[in-house]
């Protein structure tokens, strides 16, 4: 599961000691203040590296990085573009 990998990354990197259950798929990450701009930058770099996708400025602006669920959707969408071309 993509959400599980990202959740594990977020806990490892930013929320050490938290249980996976505390970070639900729909928990707001950016708008709630859990991730600041530097953390968001790191998350983008991680997603690009881990899932071999390119995240655009518009994706960030559209709030697609706000929940694990929306990040998964974004990664899947980007991957389908890569495989179909």
């Amino acid at each position, binding site marked *: 599961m993509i959400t599980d990998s990202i959740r594990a990354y977020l806990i490892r990197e*930013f*929320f*050490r*000691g*938290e*249980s996976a259950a*505390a*970070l639900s798929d729909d928990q707001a990450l950016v*708008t*709630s*203040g*859990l991730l*600041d*701009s*530097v953390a*968001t*930058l790191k998350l*983008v*770099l991680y997603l690009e590296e881990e899932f071999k996708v390119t995240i*655009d*400025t*518009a994706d*960030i*602006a*559209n*709030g697609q990085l*706000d929940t694990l669920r929306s990040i998964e959707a974004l990664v899947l969408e980007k991957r389908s573009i890569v495989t179909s071309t």
Partner: protein
Amino acid sequence: MLTNQFVHQVQCRPQAHAVGCNGVTIDYTTLYQQSSAIARLLDAQGVGPGDRVAVILPKNLDTVATLLGILFTGAAYVPLDPRLPPERVARTLADCDAKVLVISSLTLDQIYSIDCSLTLSFRAIVTPAPCSLANTIVHDFAKKAPGYDCPKRLSSNEPAYILYTSGSTGEPKGVVHTHRSAVEFVNWAMQTFSLGPDQRLANHAQLSFDLSILDIFGALSSGAAVELIQPELLLRPKELVRKLNAWQISLLYAVPSAIALLETDGDLGKLPPQSLTRVLYAGEPFSVPVLRKVMQALPQTSFYNLYGPTETNVCTYHPITSIPMEDTLQISIGRACKHLTVELLDAQEAAVPPGVEGEVCVAGPSVMLGYFARPEETRTVLYNAANFPDGRVRYRTGDRAFVDDVGNFWFRGRRDRMVKRRGYRIELGEIESALTQSPLVREAAAFTKTEAGEIQIRAAVVLKDGAKASALTLKLHCGRLLPPHMHPDSIKIIEQMPRTPNGKVDLKGLEEKYTV
């Protein structure tokens, strides 16, 4: 007035590029017309000298017009970061007693989720304060309109803008700058950095951050252009480096952590912007190994270290003439700007000799008027003018420094518990106050730890008897009350607060508890 030189530029070069955003640029005439339209609109709401207008807009072309429009009416603008938590926005609005709030419908819908693609269809909602949505009026600012007659005689001692900074008591406080203080600063910047029609400045900072005064008013007062960098672009350092090239930016002013990203994550060395003649940084010390890499990537560019709290804007500056080679070297904050007097005073308000540490105190025309509606706090930081032979007010910064034999100032830290992170001032007391506002928390202590050159904010929390909470719950609580740069990086729940024999929180003991 702060807008006088802009209006002069409108007449001198009506078709010159004034502001750019997302690849769209408007000229001085268009900007003037839009600003005038907004001024008229505000005028119709009864806005004039002595009033304050709060602005919560995403950074775009219309936002600059809004700031100018507010100034045209003689009122002061109060910019608030659209990413602030709604509770904090409400408290700040109440504190500044804004007559009108200018907020885009977009920001209103979702205050910190901004859609870039809508920047051109600008609609603003103007609501009489206190922000009561039932009374909002929707206005379309896109329509062209002729000029606006500014108030005939506005005293240069009237407020031009109010910037909110962290307050140790838990409430943010508004730093009031007058037209005079702003103009004096802008004139200094124009002369020192040779701003003029051939220049293109990048506005990196949020409009609520005082770095933006140099970008916006430095550019528009000198006939230069200013390019607004969207916050989302800051998360894409490679793309930002490409844009700096494409926009032919000649001056970039930002905090060191942001400039460092261009080198560490942005491939600055592979694509150095040839037009970039000046890089200015302020807000925090630059890590020398990183600064060296940035300077090596940009051999044609001049670098400057600027120093000054929001209360004075820049008060000393240092041209970095050679690439620093020793990692442990500190960079001087340089000499006083020529329109200001910078002194180091001891506890008895007497000047200290060279080599001895003292508190940085600043006198001169760009010192703030005071904290908005906080006479007590203002009195504690502004030394009475009558105490000095020149009869000028001194602003005491709370920063410690010494001056060397040749007259350069060297920053040595703070007198109190204020810390700086990514250029933002943070009062640790404000974080503690936010945490203890949670019904679950009995006691909280915040402290800092530097890890890999980056300041980390840590908080230790003692819960109330029987209360259950995880660190994540408390982080979310902070997210509702504090701006993003003030959120603790980590929160640890502890059984009991370690104390020194005289009852104070034992910070050393806390750090030990933290490492366990």
